[in-house]
C-alpha cells in the first residue's frame, strides 16, 4: 500500500528525530573498519609499484620472509587465475578477472601504486619494514596518462587482448579504447540547419577522488575449516562477500561479512582492494589479518572517478528552443576498462526535451588507478560541459538562463534520449523555484576593488536505481521493535528505515531500533549506491513492517475470537473495525507482543524484493562567486541547492546530502585534481596537495526541497544522494562567466588557471 494522498496524516515521516546510531558517533564508540581487533590478529602492508607501466620480471620475497615477526608474504601467484567474467554484483561494469588483476598485479603493473605483493607480520611496523625488503625486478615500459595520448596512433598499449567494442567493423588491432557507446534520438546532424545560434566547445575535467576521510580497512579471519569472517567498512557486505569468494575461489556460504561503520564512500567503497589480500594472507599465515590503507595508498591505489574530454554542440532558434544537440564524451577508465561513459552519455541531455540529439563516448584505459564509482558516476562530467554550453547559448540569445532552461525542460512524458519516457519528474518545479527564489532575485552587491561578482545557475539529472533489497522487522517481547536493514548506512539511512517502520506501526520512532545486518543475519541486498537505499531497502522494510502489522491484527482477532478482517490497526494498536465487529478495548503493540507466545509465537517478518520504479532526480543550483582579478582566486559567496526529492523521509539528512554533494562539486570545480609527473607518478597523494574544500572556503549551503512524490514508493521517496553533485561545476563556471565575461572550459578553475584566463582575455 502507499501513504501518499492528502488524507494521509504522517506522524513520523517528514520529521527530524535523532538518528539511532547518533550517540555512539559523538562519543567515539562507533566501530569503523580500522577499530576492529580480534584475538591473535596480525597486521599486513601492501608493496606497491613505483612505476606507471612495467613488466614484472621477478619478485624475490626471501629477505622479507626472513624478517623476525613476518608471518606470510603473498604475490599475484597466491591468488587463483580466474577467467574473464562479468561481475554479477557491484556498481558499474566490472570483470572479475580484471578485478583480481587490479587487487594484485600479475605479469604487468599498470599504474603507480598498483599492488604487487603483501606482507603480514606481528606488528604493522614490522610488516612495513619487511615490505620494503620485497625485491621486484621491473622492465619499465612506456606509459600513457591522458586520454589523448592513450588514443593516439602508436601509443603504448596496456592490454594486448583489448579490441574496441561497439564499433563496426570490429578492429583487428589492440588499442586502449575499450568501447564506444552511443545514444540517439532523431537526426541531430540535420537538425542543426534549423538553429539560429550554435555553441560548440571542448571541455575537460580532471580525475577527482571521493576522498572519504576513512581509509579502506578490514580484518579477515580464515579458519582451518575453510570458513572466513570479514569485518570491514564498505558500501556492501554482500558485495565484499561475493567478490572475495570469486577472487579466492571460495563458496559464498563460507564467508561471513560484518559491515562495520563506514567513514564515507561516495561510490569509492563499492569494490574490494584489501579484503582478498587479507584473506589470502590469513589463509597462508593461519592468523587473523588486519589491513589499513594509508592516505597515500588511498590516493595511489584506489579509484578516483574519470577525467574527461567532452565536445558539445548545441543549436537553438532565436526564440530560445533547442533544436539540435550533440555531445562526445571521452573518459579515462584508469588501468582497466569500466569508466562511467555510459551514464555520462545517458545523462548529458536528460534535463531537456529534445527531438534531435546524439550522445556518444569512448571508454579509454591509461596508466592510472582503475576508476571507481563517485556519486552519480559520469553525470557531473558530461553535465559540466552541457550546462556550460546551455548557459553560453542563453547568453548569446540574451535570455535569462533559468527561463531558457524552462523553455526546453524535460517534463512528464518527455522521451529521453537514453530511452525511457520520463514520469513523475520535478525538473520544471526546480526551475520555477529558482526563478521565484529570494536568492535568484537578490542583488549581488558591489564587489570590492579588484574583484568581480557574478551569479550562475545549472541543472542536473540522475537516474536513481532500485534493485534487490532485504529488510526485516522484529517485535520484541517488551513492545519495542528491531528493524534490520541489508545496507550499510552511509549517511543516516538507519534513521529513515526506522521512521518508515514506525509510521507503518503507528508507534513513536524512539521505540524502533534499526541495525545493519551482516551477511548471515539478513537477506541479500545489492550495495549502498545509486541513491537506492531509502527507496528500495525502505520499501522492503516498509513491507516487512506491514506484514508485522497485519499479523498483529490477526493476533488480536485470535484473542478477541473474531475474524481477522474485523480488526484494524490504528495509532499503534489493534481496534475492532466497526460496531459489528464487537466491543473490545484496543490491544496495543505492547499488549500483543506480551501475549505472542499464546497467539502463535514470535512476531516478525522478513522481506526481500527487487524494487522497481525508482524516480529520477533533478536539481537546479544557484551560485554567486567573487573572482579576485589579481590572484585568480574564486570565492563562493552564496549557494542554493534546489532539488526534487520525491518525499523527504528525514528532511535534515536529505538537506545534508544536498549540501555535501554541492560542496564536493565545488571542490571538483575549483581545486581538486590528480597531478602526474613525467614519469607517470602521482605527485599529490595527500590532503595537503589534493585540496578538498574546508569550512573556511564555504558559505552556508542553502537548500530547498521540492516534493513531487514517486508513486511507486510507499511514501513517495526518490533517491537524493547523487544528483546534488551534478550541477555545481557548471553553476560555478557560469557564475565566473557572468562575473568576468570569461568562459572556463577546463576544470579545476584553480587560481593559476583563472588568472591565466583573465590575462588572456585582456589580451
Amino acid at each position, binding site marked *: 500500500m502507499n501513504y501518499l494522498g492528502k488524507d494521509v496524516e504522517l506522524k513520523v515521516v517528514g520529521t527530524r528525530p535523532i538518528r539511532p546510531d547518533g550517540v555512539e558517533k559523538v562519543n*567515539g564508540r562507533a*566501530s569503523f573498519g580500522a577499530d576492529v581487533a580480534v584475538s591473535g590478529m596480525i597486521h599486513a602492508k601492501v608493496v606497491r609499484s613505483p612505476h606507471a607501466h612495467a613488466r614484472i620480471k621477478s619478485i624475490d620475497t626471501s629477505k622479507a620472509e626472513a624478517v623476525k615477526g613476518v608471518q606470510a608474504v603473498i604475490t599475484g601467484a597466491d591468488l587463483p587465475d580466474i577467467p574473464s567474467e562479468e561481475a554479477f554484483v557491484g556498481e558499474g561494469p566490472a570483470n572479475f578477472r580484471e578485478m583480481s588483476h587490479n587487487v594484485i598485479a600479475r605479469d604487468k603493473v599498470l599504474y603507480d601504486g598498483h599492488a604487487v605483493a603483501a606482507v603480514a607480520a606481528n606488528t604493522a*611496523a614490522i610488516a612495513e619494514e619487511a615490505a620494503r625488503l620485497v625485491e621486484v625486478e621491473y622492465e619499465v615500459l612506456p606509459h600513457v596518462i591522458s586520454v589523448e595520448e592513450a588514443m593516439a596512433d602508436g601509443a603504448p598499449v596496456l592490454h594486448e587482448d583489448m579490441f574496441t567494442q561497439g564499433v563496426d567493423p570490429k578492429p583487428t588491432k589492440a588499442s586502449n579504447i575499450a568501447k564506444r557507446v552511443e545514444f540517439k534520438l532523431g537526426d541531430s546532424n540535420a537538425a542543426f540547419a534549423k538553429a539560429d545560434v550554435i555553441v560548440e566547445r571542448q571541455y575537460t575535467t580532471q580525475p577527482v577522488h571521493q576522498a*572519504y576521510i576513512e581509509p579502506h580497512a578490514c580484518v579477515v579471519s580464515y579458519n582451518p575449516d575453510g570458513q572466513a569472517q570479514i569485518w570491514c567498512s564498505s558500501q556492501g557486505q554482500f558485495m565484499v562477500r561475493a567478490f572475495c569468494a570469486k577472487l579466492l575461489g571460495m563458496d559464498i556460504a563460507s564467508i561471513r561479512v560484518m559491515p562495520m561503520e563506514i567513514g*564515507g564512500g561516495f561510490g569509492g567503497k563499492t569494490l574490494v582492494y584489501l579484503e582478498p589480500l587479507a584473506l589470502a594472507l590469513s589463509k597462508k599465515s593461519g592468523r587473523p589479518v588486519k589491513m589499513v590503507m594509508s592516505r597515500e595508498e588511498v590516493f595511489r591505489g584506489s579509484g578516483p572517478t574519470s577525467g574527461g574530454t567532452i565536445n558539445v554542440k548545441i543549436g537553438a532558434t532565436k526564440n530560445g528552443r533547442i533544436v539540435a544537440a550533440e555531445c562526445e564524451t571521452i573518459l579515462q577508465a584508469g588501468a582497466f576498462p569500466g569508466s562511467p561513459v555510459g551514464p555520462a552519455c545517458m545523462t548529458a541531455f536528460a534535463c531537456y526535451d529534445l527531438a534531435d540529439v546524439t550522445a556518444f563516448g569512448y571508454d579509454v584505459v591509461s596508466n592510472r588507478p582503475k576508476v571507481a564509482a563517485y556519486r552519480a558516476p559520469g553525470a557531473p562530467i558530461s553535465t559540466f560541459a552541457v550546462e556550460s554550453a546551455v548557459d553560453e547559448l542563453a547568453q548569446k540569445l540574451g535570455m535569462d538562463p533559468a527561463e531558457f532552461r524552462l523553455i526546453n525542460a524535460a517534463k512528464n512524458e518527455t522521451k529521453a534520449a537514453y530511452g525511457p519516457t520520463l514520469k513523475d519528474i520535478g525538473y520544471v518545479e526546480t526551475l520555477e523555484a529558482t526563478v521565484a527564489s529570494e536568492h535568484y532575485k537578490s542583488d549581488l552587491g558591489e564587489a570590492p576593488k579588484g574583484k568581480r561578482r557574478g551569479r550562475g545557475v545549472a541543472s542536473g539529472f540522475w537516474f536513481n536505481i532500485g534493485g534487490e533489497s532485504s529488510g526485516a522487522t522484529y517485535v520484541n517481547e517488551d513492545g519495542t521493535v528491531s528493524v534490520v536493514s541489508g545496507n550499510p548506512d552511509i549517511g543516516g539511512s538507519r534513521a529513515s528505515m526506522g521512521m518508515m517502520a514506525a509510521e507503518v506501526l503507528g508507534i513513536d520512532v524512539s521505540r524502533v531500533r534499526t541495525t545493519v545486518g551482516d551477511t548471515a543475519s539478513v537477506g541479500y541486498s545489492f550495495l549502498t549506491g545509486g541513491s537506492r537505499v531509502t527507496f528500495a531497502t525502505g520499501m522492503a522494510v516498509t513491507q516487512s513492517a506491514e506484514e508485522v502489522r497485519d499479523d498483529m491484527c490477526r493476533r488480536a482477532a485470535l484473542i478477541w475470537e473474531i475474524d481477522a478482517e474485523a480488526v484494524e490497526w490504528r495509532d499503534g494498536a489493534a481496534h475492532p473495525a466497526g460496531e459489528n465487529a464487537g466491543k473490545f478495548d484496543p490491544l496495543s503493540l505492547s499488549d500483543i507482543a506480551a501475549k505472542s507466545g499464546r497467539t502463535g509465537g514470535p512476531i516478525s517478518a522478513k522481506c526481500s524484493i527487487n524494487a522497481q520504479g525508482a524516480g529520477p532526480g533533478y536539481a537546479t543550483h544557484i551560485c554567486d562567486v567573487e573572482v579576485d582579478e589579481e590572484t585568480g582566486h574564486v570565492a563562493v559567496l552564496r549557494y542554493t541547492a534546489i532539488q526534487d526529492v520525491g518525499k523527504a523521509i528525514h528532511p535534515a539528512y536529505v538537506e*545534508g546530502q544536498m549540501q555535501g554533494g554541492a560542496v564536493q562539486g565545488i571542490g571538483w570545480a575549483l581545486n581538486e585534481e590528480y597531478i602526474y609527473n613525467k614519469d607517470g607518478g602521482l605527485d599529490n597523494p595527500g590532503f595537503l596537495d589534493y585540496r578538498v574544500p*574546508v*569550512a573556511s572556503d*564555504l558559505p552556508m549551503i542553502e537548500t530547498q526541497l521540492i516534493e513531487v512524490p514517486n508513486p511507486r514508493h510507499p511514501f513517495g521517496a526518490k533517491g537524493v544522494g547523487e544528483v546534488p553533485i551534478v550541477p555545481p561545476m557548471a553553476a560555478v563556471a557560469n557564475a565566473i562567466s557572468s562575473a568576468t565575461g570569461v568562459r572556463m572550459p577546463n576544470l579545476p578553475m584553480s587560481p593559476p588557471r583563472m588568472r591565466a584566463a583573465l590575462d588572456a582575455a585582456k589580451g
Partner: protein
Amino acid sequence: MAKIHVTTKINGEDAEFLCEPQQTMLDVLRDELSLTGSKEGCGSGDCGACSILVDGRLVCSCLMFGAEAAGTEIMTIEGMSDGDTLHPLQQKFLEHAALQCGFCTPGVLVASKALLDANPNPTEEQARYWLAGNLCRCTGYDKIIEAVMDAAAEMRGE
C-alpha cells in the same frame, strides 16, 4: 630499542603506558589504550580526525609522539561527555544532523570544544577558520557550523 614508560593523565584519570619511541600519540591511544574514538584519516596532520587536547591545546595526535604525553593532561573524544550527560556540542551535533558517516565527528567535536573554550562567542567566520583543519567530506560543513553556533549560544545561556 627499549619501550618508554609514560605517565600521564587522560580524560581526568591517571594513566600509564609503554610505547616505542617512534609511536605516535594516535597509535598509543588506539592500539595501546583501546581509545579508538580518535581516527586516522591521513597521518599527516591535514584532516584533523585525530584531534585531541593536550593541556587544553588542540593537537593532531598523529603529529605527536606518545612519549610527549608524559606529565600532560590529555582529553580525547571519550572524555567529552560528563558521564551519561552529553556535552552541549555533542547534543547539538545530534539535533542538527551535523554528522553523516561520523568518522570526522570526534575530531570536529574536540576542535569545536577547543574553540568554545578559547572563544565562547565566535562569529560564523571565526568558527569556519578554526575548523578549517578538520576535513568533513559528507556534510559540506553547513550543519556542523549551525550546531557549533547553537551550542555556543546555549553555553552562554542564551
